[in-house]
């Protein structure tokens, strides 16, 4: 039983990790929480549902298209809701702008797609069991897709010039500018990459629970945000680690304690860890010498 719960936990944990990365990376470069992140995910998932239902698009092409759509939407959010805010009480203005954008996307989705829950069947489900241990083809697919996405992100951030620029921006946007980095482009790209991953995660979670609805981003977003905080917001490995921890604990908690509290475990663990380590598990231990 334990390994079954662990496996289920790792599978949703990987999805949380992909969403958490978007929160963490954006926080890293701009020190703001992009509250519209999970709503971009929701909107993109609806697009995936439409592509599958009405255009009968093959899964792979659909996921790619949805991720690209999410990227564009994520970058538009930054352009419209965050970039124009430059002065005054910036933090507060951005918070209001972020919540406004989140509400706007949810309402727009309700208007276009209706407020009900839609089923999402992208692939025929098959399950394999061996010695009391069950795994579905969908779960295998999720594991593969998550691993590939995380690997690509790792290479992008730690092995490319763009990655160096992103990490430089997360230290200081001004100093990055002095290196000749077009920081607006990098910030935009960070939103794009985060939303790309969220788009993929949205499809995975939508298909996994076979449910797509305009407020689906809320709880998922809160858990992913908890994962980002837990790992140390701004930290990329932290977001991944946090995602897996939240997923696993939630699954074990629901299995061994009570499934009624499934959604509470994530926040309980987050609070517990923050009490011990306020900057999160891998939060920046600032080494700043002047």
């Amino acid at each position: 039983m334990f390994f079954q719960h662990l496996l289920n936990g790792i599978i949703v944990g990987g999805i949380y990790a992909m969403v958490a990365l978007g929160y963490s990376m954006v926080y890293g470069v701009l020190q703001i929480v992009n509250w519209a992140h999970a709503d971009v995910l929701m909107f993109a998932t609806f697009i995936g549902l439409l592509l599958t239902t009405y255009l009968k698009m093959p899964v792979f092409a659909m996921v790619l298209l949805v991720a690209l759509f999410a990227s564009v939407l994520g970058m538009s959010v930054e352009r419209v809701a965050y970039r124009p805010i430059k002065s005054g009480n910036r933090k507060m203005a951005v918070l209001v702008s972020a919540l406004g954008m989140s509400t706007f996307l949810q309402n727009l989705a309700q208007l276009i797609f209706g407020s009900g829950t839609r089923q999402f069947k992208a692939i025929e489900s098959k399950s394999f069991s061996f010695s009391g241990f069950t795994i579905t083809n969908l779960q295998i697919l999720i594991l593969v897709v998550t691993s590939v996405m995380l690997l690509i992100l790792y290479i992008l951030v730690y092995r490319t010039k763009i990655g160096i620029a992103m990490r430089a921006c997360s230290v200081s946007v001004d100093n990055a500018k002095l290196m000749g980095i077009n920081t607006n482009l990098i910030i935009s790209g960070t939103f794009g990459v985060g939303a790309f991953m969220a788009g993929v995660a949205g499809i995975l979670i939508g298909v996994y629970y076979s449910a797509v609805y305009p407020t689906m981003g809320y709880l998922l977003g809160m858990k992913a945000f908890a994962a980002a905080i837990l790992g140390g917001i701004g930290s990329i490995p932290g977001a991944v680690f946090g995602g897996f921890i939240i997923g696993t604990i939630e699954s074990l908690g629901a299995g061994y304690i009570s499934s009624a509290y499934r959604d509470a475990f994530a926040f309980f663990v987050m609070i517990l860890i923050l009490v011990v380590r306020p900057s999160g598990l891998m939060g920046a231990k600032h080494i700043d010498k002047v």
Partner: protein
Amino acid sequence: MSSVLEVKNLFVNYGVVPALRDVSFHVDEGETVALIGPNGAGKTTTMHTISGLLKPKSGEIEYCGKSIGGTESYKLVSAGISQVPEGRGIFPILTVAENIEIGAFLRKDKAEIKRDKDWVYELFPRLKERMKQISGTLSGGELQMLAMARALMARPKLLLLDEPSMGLAPVIVEDVFHIIRQINKERHTTILLVEQNAQMALTAANRAYIIEVGQIVREGNAKDLMNDSEIQKSYLGL
């Protein structure tokens, strides 16, 4: 001699508070010019406005004859202006090698980048030994050297140095200024140097400007200023 940098009647504000009032000066090709002044005089503000981090309220900044006031920083870097900011601005989460790498961010000439890397590592052998080290763990002197090496990787025509001596032991300050002179001589890089350490700045510079509360109050030959009794009293502690 042609002017690399020409600042004319520059005014800069933070909100409604003026920081620079009618600042004018110039830096000619191949020169090292010092901008000396006490805390809060507006030295860093001047640097940031030249490098595009701040926008002028009014006035002109000309670089190689072209008006650049308000141009975005990254474009100025590709035009040849490199700034070593106050406090160095090293990226502590990147390694020494990555910090050097990022200095050449806009350059595409791989072979030349490699040559410049070899050159800066020769200039700062301490950095070569620490290539793989995370920069956040370097000493103050090493950080200053890394910041200069990084700026040189952009092959600047005009190098802006904001208080390179800040927080360093006198021996290290000597080293740093030795290298500043070397860069100016060997690479013919034009240098604008901001300092509170007037002694060091005047030894390295050809000419200097004194700035106080946002205004240029004196200018002249470095040697003349060093022998000026007023300057000796207020800036050289003699």
